């Protein structure tokens, strides 16, 4: 039974991954892209915690998720700082303007 529950969570987490990747692959706004990353991040926390639930070690999974969230904050701060700087440099948030480096 508990395994079934795990599978349900995993399926929904997969849905989050799909949404995030769809966003990353098709969207053009840098901030929108990062929203995609955030959605993937939620999927990851869901996977971690549901795994802990399935393994009956929810406390351990909880601590992992907390660590992961702290990590995410730090990452978001850096990413948004980069985005703001990019906006200042390019006056645009379009990912298509970011093709200066190629070849």
């Amino acid at each position, binding site marked *: 039974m508990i395994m079934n529950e795990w599978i349900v969570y995993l399926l929904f987490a997969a849905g989050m991954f799909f949404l995030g*990747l769809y966003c*990353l*692959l098709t969207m053009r706004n840098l901030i929108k892209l990062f929203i995609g990353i955030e959605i993937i991040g939620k999927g990851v926390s869901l996977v971690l915690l549901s795994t802990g639930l399935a393994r009956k070690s929810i406390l351990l999974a909880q601590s992992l998720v907390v660590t992961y969230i702290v990590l995410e904050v730090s990452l978001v701060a850096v990413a948004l700082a980069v985005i703001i700087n990019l906006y200042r440099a390019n006056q645009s948030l379009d990912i298509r303007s970011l093709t200066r*480096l190629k070849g």
Partner: protein
Amino acid sequence: MTPTTLLWMILLPAFSALALLAVPKTVKYVRESLALVSAAVSLYLAFALFAVKDLSWSAAWLGSIRLELRLYQFPAFILLGLAGFLFLITLYSVVKMKDHPRVNEYYAYIFLSAALAFGAVLSDNFVPLVFFWEGLLVTLYALISLGGKDAHRTATKAFIISGLCDFAMILGIGIVWSLSGTMTISEIGLKPEGPAALAFVLMMIGAIGKAGAMPFHTWIPDAAVDAPVTFMAFMPAAFEKLLGIYLLARICLDIFHLEPGSGLSILLMVIGAATIVLAVMMALVQKDLKRLLSYHAVSQVGYMILGIGTAVPIGIAGGLFHMINHAMYKSGLFLSAGSVEHRAGTTDLRKLGGLAREMPVTAAGFTVCALAISGVWPLNGFVSKEMVFHGALETGSIIFAVAAWVGAIFTFASFLKAGHSVFFGKRSEERAPGKVKESPWTMLVPILVLALLCITFGVFNKLPLTQFIQPIVASHAEAGAHLDFTSHALDLFNLIAGISVACLLLAFGIHVYGFKRGGNKAYLASEPIHHAPFFKQMYDWAEKRFFDIYEQGVKFLQGLSWVLFKGIDRPIDAVFEKGATAVGSAFTGLLRKAHNGHYANYLAWALGGLVVIIALVNVLLK
């Protein structure tokens, strides 16, 4: 005289070299006086050491290798000669090199060469010997390259030829070391058989290469044109002859015991004879005084090698005596040529003539030295050549003696031509009368000293022969050998001397004949021989540097590299150029296009890669 004096003998000129380098260019006279004082002190030390004759000093050096210096009869004599020449040439350079743009370096290199040469003569261990010997290679290069624009090429040539010879010597030393187990020269005494014979030949190449024998001579005539004339008087004429023949004598007498009539002895004699004849033939037809002299510098080495190669006491003594004599008159000749160049501005025989009136002292000095080198009685050249003839005949091979005589004929003929063209005969039209003056005294003194020494060593040959040469040979000859070389020194009334005199007369005849044929132009006196049927071809080839191993080697390498380039490199290159590059650049272009900078693109690759890897791992796991 403590043993450390030996060390000072080396260090004094070395420090002087450093000091001379440091003297600023603008300061007058300091450099010259420093050089003169240093040379004089060296000469004094050499005299003092010559009086002592027996010293040795050694110290640990480079770990287990010992810096061993040993003075005895032979090195003392050579040392004296070297120091004497150092002094004379320094004196001469005071005026001659005064305006040279790199005069600092010039003096520094001269004294450094002296230091290294002293070291090479004194060292009794192969390692320091090689060290000093190779050091000389560097100063040789540096001195030639002082000459000017084209000198660099000549310097490279000299460096490579000498370097190859030195490499041969090092190989030889290696063999000797493995055979004898010691690096100390005085402890070695090998019979030149088997591998030792190879070692002998290799070391011999090193020695005669330094002395400038054929076929290692080709840089000398080039250097005569490019390098400063004082360098010619200093290095090829004096220092290198002394060092090379000194080492050759040490090799033949000390390190190996060369037997008269053995194969190696004959090899040496062949080299000597060939050097005499071929080089003198080249000297004969030169139109430039310095080039002419430089070919003689090669030719005369042949006498020394021939003399030592006979391996009989009188031959060896003759070779050694010829060595010191040659150093004197050849230096004298080069210095006279320098004097002429200094005042007349050229050494081209065609543009000179009748200089004896304006430069009487130079002319006198040149005449004496020229007669000495030609072996005219009673000058020193006569005595030493007679001894070499005697030695050559004593081995029983008349052919070598004949070669030596042929050499004597052409030597005299070429010097008749040279002297006639430069100092006597009609004055050249290009030169306004009275424009040329005699050179200053500091240039003349060395010439005169050398000329006087030529006369002294000839007339009073007993002195050098008993004082210098005899003890050297005596220390190596077997007991009871006939060691009185003075018995027939100036004796004109024996067969050999008779033939020599006849040769000189023949040479005179050739010169007069050529002079008349050439329309009373002295510089054309050698033309009849130049254009003689067989010789013409040889000379043409020689002009084209057919016999120059360096030039031929360079040509060969160029040819080889051309063949390699066209035959191997280009086809490979074509494969790369046309094949690999085309495919490669197409591939590269495709890949570069794929990296278009779009984030979604890159992410898609990554996700695609993930899918592929998952599939791959799962397929491979089953």
